């Protein structure tokens, strides 16, 4: 299966595309670049942000690097969790699948163009469309876990959300700690201001 077929099948028959073992690393990285570029440009267009060339490139290149590092980190975590669920697979096979699953984001730039010139309620539609794309991407990523590690759907879903759940709980705990700390140490002056 060539690259174009993989990309096409990823949109139409994702399970079929993800099962192909002839996925290439370069194609995966190109998809990440295209997806983030499209997403950034779409957001700028909708918000009406104006930037110069260097800032524009900076705001594309940095997220790409960050995203790739994040994917590597998440793939490692998912690999570890899948192994705990008795899944058998390789992180090196999961990585390209996760990268390719970002493909739906390429629709953000064309959508932004259409919304910008349509004159209809842009903000609501843009948010709704972003949400749909996000759900699509999550579904593709969960499918990737299922296919690569040969685990069932619920296990794949649990594996996918565990890292985010942990981060969420940690964030809440840190927030509670920080707020408590501020309340304990903050002191109000008791001088009688003139008050209305």
């Amino acid at each position, binding site marked *: 299966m060539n690259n174009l077929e993989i990309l096409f099948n990823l949109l139409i028959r994702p399970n079929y595309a993800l099962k192909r073992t002839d996925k290439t690393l370069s194609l995966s990285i190109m998809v990440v670049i295209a997806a983030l570029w*499209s997403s950034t440009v779409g957001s*700028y267009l909708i918000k009406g942000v104006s930037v*110069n060339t260097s800032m524009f490139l900076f705001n594309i290149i940095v997220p790409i690097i960050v995203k790739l590092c994040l994917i590597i980190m998440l793939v490692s975590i998912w690999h570890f969790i899948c192994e705990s669920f008795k899944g058998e697979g390789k992180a090196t096979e999961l990585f390209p699948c996760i990268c390719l699953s970002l493909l739906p984001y390429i629709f953000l730039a*064309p959508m932004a163009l259409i919304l910008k010139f349509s004159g209809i309620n842009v903000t609501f539609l843009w948010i709704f469309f972003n949400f749909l794309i996000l759900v699509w991407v999550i579904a593709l990523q969960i499918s990737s876990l299922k296919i690569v590690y040969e685990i069932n759907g619920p296990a794949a879903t649990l594996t996918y959300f565990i890292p985010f759940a942990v981060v969420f709980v940690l964030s809440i705990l840190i927030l509670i700690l920080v707020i408590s700390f501020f309340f304990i140490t903050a002191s109000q002056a008791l001088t009688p201001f003139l008050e209305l």
Partner: protein
Amino acid sequence: MNKERIISVLILIFFIISLIAASFLVLRVSEEKMARFPRELKGFSTFSQNIAIVNVYGPIEIESSNYLGFFPSGADYIVEELQNLRKNPDVKAVVLRINSPGGSVGAVQEIYSELLKLKQSGKKLVASQAEVSASGGYYLAAAADKIVSEPGAVTGSIGVIIPITNFEGLFGKIGVQVDVVKSGAHKDIGSSSRALTDEERKILQDMVDSAYQQFLDAVNKGRSSLMTEEKIKEVADGRIMTGAQAKEVGLVDELGDLDDAINIAAELAGIKKSDIRIFEEKKDWKKMLLQQIGSKTSNNPLSSFLPPRTGLLEYRWAPEY
């Protein structure tokens, strides 16, 4: 497969064209905006900022007691800010936003000196009094070309204080005895373990009178166009007053809020209302975070229950004594 190939090529072409078009539009929009404002710098636009707001909030000390000690956040910080503004050729006027009950004499005078230098450099200075601008806060306001106050702000309190707490009775009750070995009779002047002697009281009173005279001189210098020396002395007995009362006696020029102060500053500096651009110091998030942590950790949780600090010469409205 041929059909799929054609569709996938079409999708790819559509995507590439959209991406290029959208990118072009984003950059093009940027160039159009820049063409309209030739003075804008490249990138996220910054206008030539001509009026700065400097905040003086809380008790005025040389630096706030900051466990981390990385960044000054008291008078030192304000002085540094004023020095930078003095050297900035774009800034034509400074609005000093004051919400302070005053502070130590040294710290207040540090800022006051810098304010005078700012005025000497040709920039206009307007003081905007918020909730409280008393004692040391008013000392700083007196340096301004104009003082704008909220009508209900607490101001005045022109005077000096040295708070000394005498724990002799308490120590006696709990069996604590303080012994002092000193090189001179007055080395432990203001000690909390005993009452002041008459001689010590005289020494401290002379200090207070000296600092008070400095305060009166500063107010005379700033308000001489509206108030006589006698009138100033009449209201400079430490009394507090509202902004409205202060305007009646001449300690304040106008009643209004921060916006009014900015408009007055613009008028003094010859800036049209439509050309007002507020100068904003570039925010360093690391500095702000450390200052926030420092300011929170510097407050002893028991400070509300412990007696206030003693022995410092202060221009401070201190109703807790």
